[in-house]
């Protein structure tokens, strides 16, 4: 098998070193301030996605519906991407566990309704906000449920 090794000029390297720009700590702080500006809109969108998930999940529980499975996975993955950015990391972790579970369902070709239900209920509870001890118990439980499948 022919292998070609090629050194490619790194144009980004030259650009980031140009005079000007901003201190790294300032760049991070400015980015965090910018994220605060879209926080409310993103949380609103997140709640809408959770509602959509509640509508899709029963279709999956009722039978072997691939389309519903993939739609629920996609929605749950969107929650993973949004929640943790806006201090809703617990919701994001539950959504990640649900993605993991759905991926396993997809691989095995079978769905466990109770495992799905406990994830959906947990997402709703975590979104409402719970004491730290309860949150940890729920997330550990979800991880254990997913690991069984």
């Amino acid at each position, binding site marked *: 098998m*022919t292998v070609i*090794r090629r050194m490619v000029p790194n*144009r980004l390297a030259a650009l980031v070193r140009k005079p000007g*720009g901003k201190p790294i700590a300032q*760049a991070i702080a400015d980015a965090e301030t910018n994220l605060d500006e879209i926080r409310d809109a993103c949380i609103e969108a997140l709640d809408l996605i959770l509602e959509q998930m509640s509508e899709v999940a029963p279709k999956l529980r009722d039978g072997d519906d691939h389309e519903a499975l993939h739609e629920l996975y996609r929605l749950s993955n969107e929650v993973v*991407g949004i929640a943790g950015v806006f201090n809703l990391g617990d919701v994001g972790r539950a959504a990640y566990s649900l993605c993991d579970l759905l*991926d396993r369902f997809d691989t095995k070709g079978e769905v466990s309704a109770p495992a799905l239900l406990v994830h959906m209920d947990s997402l709703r509870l975590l979104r409402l906000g719970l004491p730290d001890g309860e949150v940890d118990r729920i997330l550990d439980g979800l991880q254990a449920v997913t690991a069984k499948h």
Partner: protein
Amino acid sequence: MAATPSSGKPRINLEAASILLIESNQQGMDILSQIFAGFGARSPQRASGADEAMDLIRRIEFDLILCSAELGEIDGYDFVANLRRSKLEPNCYAPVIIVTGHTQLSKVKKARDCGANFVVSKPLTPKIILERVIFVAKESRPFIECETYLGPDRRFHSVGPPPGMEGRRSDDLPLEVGEAQTPNMSQDEIDALLQPQRIAK
């Protein structure tokens, strides 16, 4: 984490960098845009899908591409693999950072082999993204092109094959040290190497 440490505080300048953000989810795109605006990037180009992104790639030279793994009709890994094989220079060699939420087990190998410089897990934080951007700006990994892979060398450190295993690459040294091919150096020759002599002008 230092980009330009000359003035004391490390700085980064993305003002002149041409950046492409590819994300099909509206909130995901908003998050990326806000982060890069905070970093000082001026109007990065945005694409919500693979076709739109490829159209921009044909017209504009990019210094950095951020691509979501979930693009809808085609996933981000296939998109990057296609870009690397596209021969659209210089963009086919542009640094690419893939951002992903959950990665399906069936796609882990794809993520490793697509030719991206980095895969970053969501949720995104400005600190992690900036660390990766700076790392990409500093790196000097060669591009490897073969039948099964095209992208930056996946080895960050050259540590050789695992102990006790034969290397797969032509430049890996054999496990057994063979017979010497030339006579041993004399002690005088070794001494001469260790004690450089002044050369008469």
